[in-house]
């Protein structure tokens, strides 16, 4: 509303009227308005307004302030409410404890989930130019191969920058592998090292503590490290110009120290080395290997939706001539066979949650889990609030007389509502404080469960604190309102006379109970299914023996000593076998190559397979089985051009007489030089990526790869064997750290996401069931207390204890049955959706859901019957005598 330009702000006037006593209010307000009018003749309105407000403020002094007799009364009434709330609390400590604990636990679960979800959603939201940064994706289809990649060829970024004016700049990243950095006499392994373009700091916001971001990654043999790496080697961060000794021989000059990458960035590198060192950095073909994670920074006002078609046109322009040269087909011919090369952009902010392509730099999150957890948090919060409401109503039965008394003494309905809302807000605030304490207490455990490094200080931001206060008030008012209105509506005469409370509102309470149990059953069923699926993954026959296999790392640092190590390790008693290769079913270390079934290189006959370089001991060490054919052999010279393929690849090649077939693969794209491979064996399918995917075609080639050395141990004396291995290592490589891992642990790591989710869901489901039970317990108490006299009379008339127990339990069981009917279809739908994500999954069986229902029913029965039996065995005289 617009006020007249000649009057001061209305709220200030109202405030003054409220503040000032009757003696002065009229005269002083008049004076101040007169003064205001006078000021308005020579100053702007806002100045006059401010001076007016200052004048009002000056009057906040004892001489002017209203001494409200009315307000004093209501203050003492509130004091009384608090006293009564405290007394009620003391009188029934058990109930109050249940009530507060239930809410506190529920709230702290919500807080934890809230923090988790907030962290998931906050990925890459801190980059200054974040809204303009996009990651380039490539989608390729040729023959029956379809690949969705997070990487592009080496030329893509540079070409986009020169040819498309909307592209301001670009930067590329690629895993470097690991570095051995010398500290004193020791070598320390730095794992998270990346190749990066010098434009890295133009695209991402990575604040540099010392060094020049413009030039830091422009010279060869330089390195940019994070603060913690700098501290690790030099104990301070002012180390620009210092030199790190790498892999014992090279040296790299530190040209920049950046702040540690935030935990909510999709990459977690700790060091960057300049791409300029690489002679293949701008070398390659458009159809060739796609291996650079490329980020484009678009110009201000550029629209990504308009840039994507331009990028695709650019791609076609460069791809066409090269296809012609390599496979002898024009782009149109290539496309008309159903093949394509396409590019798309993923906004920086969406990489973590929405993109899960081949070649992501780090593991990504899953928006599905964000939804699942938000839903769980909502369920728990609602269950906790319903529980609180039910308990408060139940306890109100004991407060009826107090309410009657208050009414008789002249308390208005509004005052009674105020009383109960005050009580509930107080309880809620207490619960909130306890919830924060619980959250802080279990934070480390929660971090371990989720595998995140959330900071508890996230709880201390103004937004969260305001949110908590608002939530406490809101929950207090919502959960207090039902009992408040319910209790204040009592007829004083009937409650004072001791008549039973009307059960009219029980339909609403029934709805609450049904809802609460439906939510619990949903969580129980989901938990059962998630749990079984994870069990299934753990115990599925995956085609190799992952137990008792140890992988030793840093083999690539040994150079030509690798073979010697393998030879001496094979002589160690307790080692059954050893193989040198980095290609393991539990690694991400992969490369894919294209093979053709004829030298004509027809894309129709192309098969894209992972190509793993292994030695002759690989199959035995991994416990893989040959279905047909033979293993590689040292003694057969032609094995260097032999392949062992898996069943999936064999099926792709038609399945019959595969061992007679030959495969061809391009060695040189320009000269079209080919290499011919013979298939000598077929290995039983084994899982080498997530069980979310089916087994893809794969080929073993005979050759040396020094990415690791794996040994199979005899089942006995594993510890002793391990120390023997370490000693052997030390005789061969004194300067390189001995590092190893167990393959079953590596396998578990592949499914860590699922396991963590499973565990979290289990915990939260248990919590919600517990809270539901608290609510049900309170409700059962309330109902039995209500029917105290009825039970007494029934007993006098000859009813038995089991009869009465059944009578009292029946009502609740009906509600739970109803909840089962509602919850199971929902659970069926959502768990089905989740399972579809796995190529290998359990079937949804009816008994799983039946079990969830039975569990809920049993829990309800147990909770209710405790109260029912207590009421049933009571001496009828006690209940009948009271009037």
């Amino acid at each position, binding site marked *: 509303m617009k006020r007249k330009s000649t*009057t001061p702000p209305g709220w200030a006037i109202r405030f003054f009227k409220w503040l000032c006593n009757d*003696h*002065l209010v*009229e*005269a*002083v*307000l*008049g*004076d*101040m*308005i*007169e*003064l205001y*009018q*006078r000021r308005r003749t020579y100053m702007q309105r806002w100045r006059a307004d401010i001076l007016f407000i200052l*004048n009002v403020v*000056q*009057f906040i*002094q004892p*001489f*002017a302030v209203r001494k409200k007799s009315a307000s004093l009364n209501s203050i003492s009434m509130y004091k009384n409410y608090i006293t009564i709330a405290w007394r009620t609390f003391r009188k029934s400590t058990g109930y109050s404890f249940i009530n507060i604990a239930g809410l506190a636990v529920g709230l702290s679960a919500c807080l934890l989930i809230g923090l988790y979800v907030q962290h998931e959603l906050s990925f890459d939201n801190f980059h200054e130019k974040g809204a303009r940064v996009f990651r380039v994706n490539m989608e390729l289809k040729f023959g029956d191969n379809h690949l969705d990649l997070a990487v592009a060829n080496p030329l893509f970024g540079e070409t986009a920058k020169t040819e498309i004016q909307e592209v301001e700049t670009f930067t590329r990243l690629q895993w470097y592998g690991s570095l051995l950095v010398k500290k004193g006499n020791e070598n320390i392994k730095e794992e998270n090292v990346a190749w990066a373009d010098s434009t890295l700091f133009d695209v991402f916001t990575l604040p540099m503590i010392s060094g020049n971001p413009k030039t830091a990654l422009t010279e060869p043999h330089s390195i940019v490290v994070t603060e913690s790496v700098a501290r690790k080697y030099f104990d301070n961060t002012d180390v620009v110009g210092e030199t790190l000794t790498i892999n014992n021989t090279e040296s790299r000059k530190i040209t920049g120290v950046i702040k540690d990458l935030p935990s909510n960035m999709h990459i977690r590198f700790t060091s960057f080395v300049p791409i300029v060192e690489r002679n293949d950095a701008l070398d390659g073909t458009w159809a060739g290997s796609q291996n650079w994670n490329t980020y484009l920074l678009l110009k201000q006002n550029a629209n990504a939706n308009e840039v994507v078609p331009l990028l695709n046109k650019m791609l076609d322009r460069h791809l066409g001539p090269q296809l012609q040269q390599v496979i002898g087909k024009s782009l149109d011919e290539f496309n008309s066979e159903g093949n394509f090369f396409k590019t798309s952009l993923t906004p920086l902010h969406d990489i973590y949650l929405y993109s899960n392509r081949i070649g992501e730099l780090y593991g990504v999150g899953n928006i599905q889990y964000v939804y699942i957890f938000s839903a769980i948090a909502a369920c728990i919060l609602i269950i906790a609030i319903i529980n609180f409401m039910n308990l408060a109503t139940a306890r109100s039965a004991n407060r009826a007389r107090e309410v009657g008394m208050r009414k008789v003494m002249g308390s208005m309905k509004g005052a009674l509502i105020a009383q109960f809302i005050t009580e509930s807000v107080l309880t809620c605030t207490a619960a909130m404080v306890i919830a924060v304490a619980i959250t802080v207490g279990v934070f480390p455990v929660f971090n371990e469960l989720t595998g995140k490094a959330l900071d508890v200080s996230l709880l201390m931001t103004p937004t969260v604190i305001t949110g908590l206060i608002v939530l406490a008030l809101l929950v207090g008012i919502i959960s207090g309102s039902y009992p408040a209105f319910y209790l204040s509506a009592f007829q004083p005469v009937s409650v004072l006379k001791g008549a039973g409370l009307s059960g009219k509102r029980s339909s609403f309470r029934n709805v609450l109970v049904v809802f609460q149990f439906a939510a619990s059953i949903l969580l129980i069923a989901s938990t059962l299914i998630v749990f079984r699926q994870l069990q299934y993954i753990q115990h599925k026959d995956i085609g190799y023996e992952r137990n008792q296999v140890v992988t030793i790392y840093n083999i690539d640092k040994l150079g030509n000593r690798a073979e010697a190590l393998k030879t001496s390790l094979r002589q160690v008693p307790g080692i059954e076998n050893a193989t040198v290769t980095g290609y393991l079913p539990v690694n991400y270390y992969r490369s894919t190559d294209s093979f053709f079934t004829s030298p004509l290189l027809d894309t129709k006959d192309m098969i894209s397979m992972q190509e793993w370089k292994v030695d002759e001991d690989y199959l035995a060490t991994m416990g893989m089985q040959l279905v047909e054919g033979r293993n590689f052999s040292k003694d057969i010279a032609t094995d260097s051009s032999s392949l062992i393929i898996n069943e999936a690849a064999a099926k792709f090649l038609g399945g019959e007489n595969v061992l007679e077939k030959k495969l061809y693969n391009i060695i040189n794209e320009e000269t079209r030089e080919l290499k011919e491979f013979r298939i000598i064996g077929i290995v039983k399918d084994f899982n080498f990526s997530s069980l979310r995917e089916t087994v893809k075609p794969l080929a073993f080639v005979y050759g040396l790869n020094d990415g690791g050395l794996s040994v199979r141990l005899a089942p006995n004396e594993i510890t002793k064997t391990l120390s023997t291995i370490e000693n052997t290592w030390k005789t061969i490589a004194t300067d390189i750290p001995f590092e190893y891992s167990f393959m079953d642990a590596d396998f578990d790591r592949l499914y860590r996401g699922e396991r963590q989710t499973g565990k979290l869901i289990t915990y939260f489901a248990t919590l919600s069931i517990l809270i539901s039970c608290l609510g049900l317990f309170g409700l059962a108490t309330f109902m039995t207390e209500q029917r105290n006299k009825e039970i007494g009379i029934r007993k006098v008339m000859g009813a038995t204890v089991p009869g009465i127990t059944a009578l009292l339990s029946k009502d609740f069981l009906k509600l739970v049955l109803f909840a089962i009917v509602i919850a199971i279809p929902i659970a069926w739908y959502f768990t089905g959706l989740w399972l579809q994500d796995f190529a290998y999954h359990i079937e949804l069986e009816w008994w799983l859901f039946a079990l969830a229902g039975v569990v809920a029913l049993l829990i309800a029965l147990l909770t209710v019957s405790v109260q029912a039996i207590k009421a049933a065995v009571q001496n009828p005289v006690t209940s009948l005598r009271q009037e």
Partner: protein
Amino acid sequence: MKGTYIGEFEELVLLSVGILFDDAYGLAIVDELEKQTGRTIMISSVHKALVRLEDKGYLKSRMGGSTETRGGRDKRLYQLTQSGKKVLAESRELRNEMWKQVPKIVWEGGKA
């Protein structure tokens, strides 16, 4: 002196009420004081003094004299009571008495 003491500011307020005669209300007193002393006077301190002086019985007040510029609100018009006049007179007397006791040499700029 016993109990009839008033502060300098209170004395000035009382005098202003006298000067303004039948239109002595808060803002007018503020204006008068600012004009006479050249100091900036806070409206709240004037009202505070007025309340105190009325409590002590030196002033009496009535409501009246609303104008358009005041949003139609009445003024609280103050008037000196008998004891108000008396306390002013006593205060003046005391000063005069003390003035007389200051040796002439002080005023004539003697070499003290």
